[in-house]
């Protein structure tokens, strides 16, 4: 469903930004209040609830034993799936994932995969035959802008919280020992910062109102060492090279701040 933004709101938000202000009084490089809890779902092997402002996502990680892909027989599998629940916003509808949901899943997956958050090689049980598959399900329950940063932050928290039963091979069979739970092997804590371009300015962590009037969007994933591991541009307008570089340097500082929130 297309949402129509009244011109008057567009103009007032844009004018505010032009004068160095935002509708909620934040600085351009200031996040809304963030809360992050891990282990909120007992039945999930790993879980987290993240809130950035009013945006809220509940994330669960569930492992299953499966066969590895033919081209990577010694590597475990990580699958990220997002549900933009109709509960989360009046214009979200149930049914198969739409392009926004698929984009969110894929960008989150990219940041985590390319940031090597999970040591997937340690998830191999029998090479070529049995590996752990980690299903990361993101349930978006309240949508008030900037899903990307919330999705990655919550996902990393959920993965850090994940414990797997020890898998042994006894007489050629995989035996899962639920009395010995081992934490998921975590290498890194790659996180993401998203910027919206309104007028000629870049603002971090756009609220819904700001997303609705933004020209372009840029999400930047940064690893623990400060390297970039994922990026995604969105929106119909363009970004300049300077803007991209500026966004990256701010993202390095801001993701480091976000990292301190991880349990």
């Amino acid at each position: 469903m297309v949402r129509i933004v009244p011109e008057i709101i567009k103009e007032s938000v844009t004018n505010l930004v032009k004068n160095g202000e935002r509708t909620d009084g934040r600085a351009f490089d200031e996040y809304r209040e963030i809360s992050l809890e891990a282990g909120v779902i007992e039945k999930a092997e790993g879980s987290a609830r993240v809130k950035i402002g009013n945006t809220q996502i509940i994330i669960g990680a569930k492992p299953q034993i499966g066969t590895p892909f033919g081209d990577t027989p010694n590597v475990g599998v990580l699958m990220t799936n997002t549900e933009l629940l109709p509960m989360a916003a009046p214009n979200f509808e149930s049914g198969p994932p739409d392009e926004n949901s698929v984009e969110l899943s894929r960008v989150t997956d990219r940041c985590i995969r390319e940031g090597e958050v999970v040591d997937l090689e340690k998830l191999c049980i029998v090479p070529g035959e049995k590996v752990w598959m980690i299903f990361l399900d993101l349930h978006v329950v309240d949508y008030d802008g900037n899903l990307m940063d919330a999705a990655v932050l919550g996902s990393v928290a959920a993965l850090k919280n994940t414990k797997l039963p020890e898998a042994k091979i006894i007489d050629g069979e995989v035996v899962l020992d639920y009395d010995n739970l081992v934490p998921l092997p975590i290498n890194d804590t790659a996180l993401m910062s998203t910027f919206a371009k309104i007028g000629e300015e870049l603002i971090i962590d756009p609220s819904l109102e700001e997303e609705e009037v933004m020209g372009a969007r840029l999400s930047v994933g940064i690893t623990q060492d400060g390297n970039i591991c994922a990026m995604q541009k969105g929106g119909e307008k363009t970004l300049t090279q300077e803007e991209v570089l500026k966004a990256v340097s701010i993202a390095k500082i801001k993701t480091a701040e976000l990292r301190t929130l991880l349990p």
Partner: protein
Amino acid sequence: MIIIITNTNLSTGTETSGRADNRAFDELRKMKIEAGVLERADGSAYLEIGGNKVLAAVYGPRELFVRRLMQPNKAVLRCKYNMAPFSVDDRKRPGPDRRSVEISKIASQALTPAVFLEKFPRSTIDVFIEVIEAEGGTRCAGITAASVALADAGIPMRDMVVACAAGKSDGKVILDLSEVEDKEGQADVPIAIMPRTGEITLLQMDGNLTEEEFGQALDLAINGCKIISEKQKAAIKNRYGDE
């Protein structure tokens, strides 16, 4: 072949209380209800009972885009029940399955009688029930939460529908079956009522009960509903003050 080792003792019934979690036969699991937990939704509620965690959200009354569902003289109430993939032990595949489609239908039918739909012709009231964690009795938890969300949305209602299950496990008729009691039990009777009049808006049953046992189960469930109803009211008062 995958072999699973676990120490969890799945059997119900200890010598002392007759129930695995030491509840009396007519005792509900610990619960809490909170109204107005989501920002965007017109009304919302969060409910925990035992190990169940359920969110409910209401949108509307709003325009109904599906013309074939439109009623010229009243609103339609549409309910969607969905389980999160991580809500159960073995990951549930996302999206609707036959079970959730059925529960969606009976949940909307359970809520419909309480709502003054005739005040909103040609529109829809959408109720979303999201099971975040499941531990037996999610449909009842969902319906109970949905009523609170409807009230939170300011939808005019005759009463707040409340749901609760009774059943039979380990040979005894008991209130509010846990997951283990449901799995190992002999019967499950989920009901929903409008507590002011006692009218039943939902009744299902599966398993095996004698007529007498069914009568006991129904009594237990109705009493359970009345207790939960007070918690619903408290949740609304908690949010809006004691008017």
